[in-house]
């Protein structure tokens, strides 16, 4: 299991990146993250919504109420322009960290 500090730190870039491919809603975002991480990145469901609301408050994403195919009311979130910029910054930073770690690992096991 991934440590909760890392789970919390990765929530924002993951949400922004998922929304970059189109609008989505809370439940679907959680399922997508779970599937992509092979079940290793397991968010506490209720914690996703404060993050979504915070991103919306910061003007990175926007929301609208809509209906699912079954007629159930749903709140859909989508990326705003500032969100896209924030996502790119996250990608740069995470790539940097990944690059440093990969380099260190390579040196150690070379």
């Amino acid at each position, binding site marked *: 299991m991934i440590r909760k500090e890392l789970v919390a730190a990765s929530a924002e870039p993951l949400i922004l990146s998922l929304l970059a491919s189109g609008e989505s809603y809370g*439940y679907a975002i959680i399922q997508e993250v779970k599937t992509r991480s092979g079940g290793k990145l397991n968010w506490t469901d209720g914690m996703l919504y404060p993050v979504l609301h915070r991103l919306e*408050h910061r003007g990175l994403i926007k929301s609208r109420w809509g209906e699912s195919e079954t007629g159930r009311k749903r*709140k859909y979130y989508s990326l705003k322009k500032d969100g896209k910029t924030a996502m790119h910054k996250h990608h740069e930073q995470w790539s940097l960290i990944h690059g440093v770690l990969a380099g260190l690992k390579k040196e150690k096991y070379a």
Partner: protein
Amino acid sequence: MLAAGVPSPVPLDELEIHLRDEIEQRMRAGFSPQVAFETATQQIGRPHQVQGEFQKIETARDTLKWKLQQLALVAGAGLFPLWVSCIVLFKVGGFSQTTPGERVSCLAVMAVFSLLFWGGRLSHGLFPVIPSKRTRDAILVAGFILVAVWWMVFFNLIVPRYDFTAGQFGVAFLWGFATPAGAFAGLTWGIETAARKPRAASTT
């Protein structure tokens, strides 16, 4: 969730819809309705933790709003006396007929106004800390009603009893209008600043 005080009905709507989706999914996976409900509610997380996260957003919103309000207050506290003082000193409009003594009195009103306005902010440590926003709002509304009643009494009942010259009217107008306005603004600023002080300390 309601019992835990999750603040706005909108997140509650979302959480409820999420819970229904999760229960349906688990039932499709073969769980009984009872087990599906229990495991789904566990997965949502503890109400006080979720509430805590929403509270952080509310606090951030409140902080931004308070900064903007303070900017408006600083602008009001600075610009209004400056504007009135310029009108008085340069004898604009009705103030062209004021005597030197009346002009000094007008400037004194502005000094008192500024003192009351800034006094509230600077002496916020003397104000009681009222954590409830509703109580603070009630005090401020009551204060504003008192000031408004005073303005009505002063301008409709007191001022017409006297045969003022234009200059005297200007002086009376400023004393009757600006002094309670300054006191009210100072009270507002002091109460709101006092209420935010412990919160700021606890979040750092």
